[in-house]
């Protein structure tokens, strides 16, 4: 490229660059479109996935958290920032956490504790503009639930009683189903002894009776029998 051609193309590129910045300048001043967030005056909208220090979820039915102090989170935490302790509480079957301390200064927000939690009672809080003056940033996760502990025990006991009642009912149903199945089996066996080909009614009935699947392994023998038939 010649000397003047180069000079010209260079100048052209400079002018076009200045055009870009002028456009942005006009854009900011005339259209009031600064892209910055005037932080303390405007607050950012947080994404639903936003991660801050973990906290315990307050469940509606018990008005409290559901931590059973299994310590899975304490074991998995790569930063060793969770310390919790708990145990048996009078009146309910579930174990209950007594202290749940978490050092946010150590936390790396990886979310492994949320993954391993068997009762899914951990979630991220949404605090985002907190600051501290020292390295210790211990958060007592149970603190907000202390006042509700009695209420929780009451409600939990009610739930457990209800659950026990349901379980008993189910067990009864299962027992009934088992008996029925046994009867059907006996009938089937009898029918098989009598005449092998025409006996589809009895197993069908047994199948319908055995519908409540969660009634433990009582009907195992029956299904085996049915499969074979």
């Amino acid at each position, binding site marked *: 490229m010649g000397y003047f051609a180069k000079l010209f193309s260079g100048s052209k590129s400079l002018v076009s660059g200045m055009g870009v910045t002028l456009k942005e300048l006009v854009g900011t001043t005339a259209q009031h479109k600064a892209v910055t967030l005037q932080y303390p005056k405007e607050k950012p909208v947080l994404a639903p996935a936003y991660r801050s220090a973990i906290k315990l979820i307050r469940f509606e039915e018990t008005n409290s958290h559901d931590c059973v102090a299994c310590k899975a989170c304490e*074991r998995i935490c790569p930063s*060793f920032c969770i*310390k919790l302790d708990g145990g048996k509480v009078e009146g309910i079957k579930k174990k209950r956490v007594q202290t749940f301390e978490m*050092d946010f200064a*150590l936390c790396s927000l990886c979310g492994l504790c949320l993954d391993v939690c068997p009762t899914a009672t951990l979630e991220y809080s949404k605090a985002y503009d907190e600051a501290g003056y020292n390295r210790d940033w211990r958060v007592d996760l149970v603190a907000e639930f202390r006042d509700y502990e009695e209420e929780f025990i009451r409600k939990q006991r009610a739930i457990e009683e209800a659950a026990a009642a349901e379980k008993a009912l189910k067990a009864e149903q299962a027992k009934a189903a088992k008996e029925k199945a046994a009867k059907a089996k006996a009938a089937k066996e009898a029918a098989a002894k009598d005449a092998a080909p025409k006996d589809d009614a009895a197993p069908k009935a047994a199948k319908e009776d055995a519908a409540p699947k969660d009634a433990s392994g009582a009907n195992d023998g029956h299904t085996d029998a049915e499969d074979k038939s």
Partner: protein
Amino acid sequence: MSVDLPTRIDELSTASEECAYEKVGFHQRHTIDASVLIDLARAFFEAGYVLEMITCQDLRAETQKMLLVYSFNRLESVDRQLLHLAIDPDTEQAPTLSMIYSGANWFEREVYDMYGVRFSDHPELERILLPEDADFFALRKDFGRMDEASAGGDEAEEGDDD
């Protein structure tokens, strides 16, 4: 030097092993002696392989040796070859590859820094990641476990974490 690479490797290595690339990520693994390392590296260089990394395993608990691992790869079509070279860090020195592969310079410095394996004829065998006055080799297995050394005071009970 018209001998092709596989023959050359066969000549020089003590033992070779084909590996399932899909599972382990490399094609072959060769065990070699320190004396043939430079020749072999030169063969790799001439065959158009790059030196991807040099690292080390601290096997002193079992074999009294450090195991140097060299990884060569071909850029055009992947063919990753690992070299294993066992070295006693207290008595032996590995030959440097920095005159063939310039990048080996820093890799070897890092291995020296972390494992204390020395490389003979290396142009500047100094600490690279740790401070010059460090008196330990950080990745040796007998150098303190992480959780004991880490700050925070109340981590004494993590010794048995799994």
